[in-house]
């Protein structure tokens, strides 16, 4: 399995090639293939749940909206301003939806499977200084704690009797106070943490610990991914290549 996992630069390069191709391609089949391939990668690396969450909560409403607007309301496409008809509108909606799905899943497949020290290794191998790596990693690891703190702040507004009822206007009024307390209560510990990072040389320690673990990828994996990405681009633009070799 490890032979199929790319190294950091291979991962990024393959993603850039695939994304660049997606930007310009206008082929339903190619986009759908790229989308499916990315989901397969996510599934193999145990991240299928995130892909399904995106599809269900974000992509489906978006795709439905596009179909309704361009297919049923406008009945046309901005690419062919003079042409009219439901099929033209639905075709445009389909291409746009597939492009969004493909780009999103490529992004997820590139970065989501990285965990723990793998993530550290990834960012440091891209050339970022240790303090920048530590800053980026801390966002991921502090996010659950931050969400808990948000919950505590909102709960405290209720627990102190400051949110007297649940009407819309009362809930809107909570935002500035909750936000201010959230910021100030987090600011103290953030500043303390930053000072500690510097005195304990934590960023350097972090990068060293990740380096000693080594990356999870291999050169053969990088080669495989980049090759696949190039093959997909060639497939996506096959009509142009055949017509204009």
């Amino acid at each position, binding site marked *: 399995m490890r032979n199929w996992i790319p190294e950091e630069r291979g991962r990024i390069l393959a993603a850039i090639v695939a994304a660049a191709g997606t930007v310009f391609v206008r082929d339903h089949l190619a986009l759908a293939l790229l989308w499916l391939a990315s989901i397969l990668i996510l599934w193999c690396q145990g991240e299928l749940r995130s892909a399904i969450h995106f599809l269900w909560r974000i992509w489906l409403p978006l795709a439905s909206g596009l179909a309704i*607007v361009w297919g049923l309301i406008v009945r046309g496409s*901005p690419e062919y301003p003079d042409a009219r008809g439901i099929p033209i509108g639905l075709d445009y909606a389909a291409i746009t939806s597939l492009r969004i799905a493909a*780009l999103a899943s490529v992004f997820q497949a590139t970065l989501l499977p990285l965990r723990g020290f793998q993530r550290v290794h990834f960012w440091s191998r891209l050339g970022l200084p240790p303090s920048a790596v530590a800053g980026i990693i801390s966002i991921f690891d*502090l996010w659950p704690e931050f969400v808990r703190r948000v919950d505590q702040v909102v709960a405290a507004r209720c627990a102190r009797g400051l949110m007297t009822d649940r009407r*819309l206007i009362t809930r809107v009024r909570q935002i*500035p106070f909750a936000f201010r307390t959230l910021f100030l209560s987090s600011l103290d510990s953030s500043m303390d943490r930053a000072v500690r990072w510097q005195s304990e040389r934590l960023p350097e320690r972090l990068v060293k610990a990740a380096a000693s673990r080594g990356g999870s990828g291999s050169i053969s994996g990088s080669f495989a991914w980049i090759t696949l990405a190039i093959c997909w681009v060639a497939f996506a633009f096959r009509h142009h290549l055949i017509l204009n070799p």
Partner: protein
Amino acid sequence: MVQILTRFFVSCRDSRWLQRHRFHRIICFMTTVSASLAPMSVKTAALALVPLGVLLNLGIGTIVHLLKLPLFVDAVGTILITLLIGWRWGAVTGVLSFLVGGLLVNPVLPWFSATQATIAIVAGIMASKGWFRSLPRTIVVGILIGICAAIVSAPVIIWLFGGITGSGSGFITSFLLASGKKIVESVILTGLSCEPIDKTLQCLLVFWLVKSLPERFRTKLAPLGYLRQNTTANA
């Protein structure tokens, strides 16, 4: 003032003549004390504030969700960090928010990173000239940021999303498209009608927050960003 004192004490401490003097121990001690009171360096402040700004950008959406409100605010952290430590770090905050948000919240967010950078740049330029000092000025800044954000976001919305982003503004775009307007016109008009209001609300939130910063944070951060230009004597 504390930085000047610290440098003074350090040079006294390292002075060979004073090292033989009986006051040297007191000098060493005062060096320690003043070093512990010195304001933060911008690098340390960035280490503390950029991740916090990112978490605020993502987290305020969580507050809105917990309170079940039909709002979407995503640049409060960007504007706040810009005011506190400068537009460059504000831009880093904004771009990182959407890159990390792409993994934690919504994978299409990274495409709007340029919008976040634009917000930071415009907020920084206006903050450097003291435009966050009063409520009317802050409203003007909010409108300006909204206009710039609408223009920068438009190409992404047009090309990638086909004009419909899935938020409430999509209804306005649909209406304009149905009335016969072209996609470019529809998206820009939608953006110009929604973004200034949204960004003004966010600027007002930041204005209010900065006004109520505790003194010890204000002292530490004042030399680093645009706080001095944007606080009155009574604040």
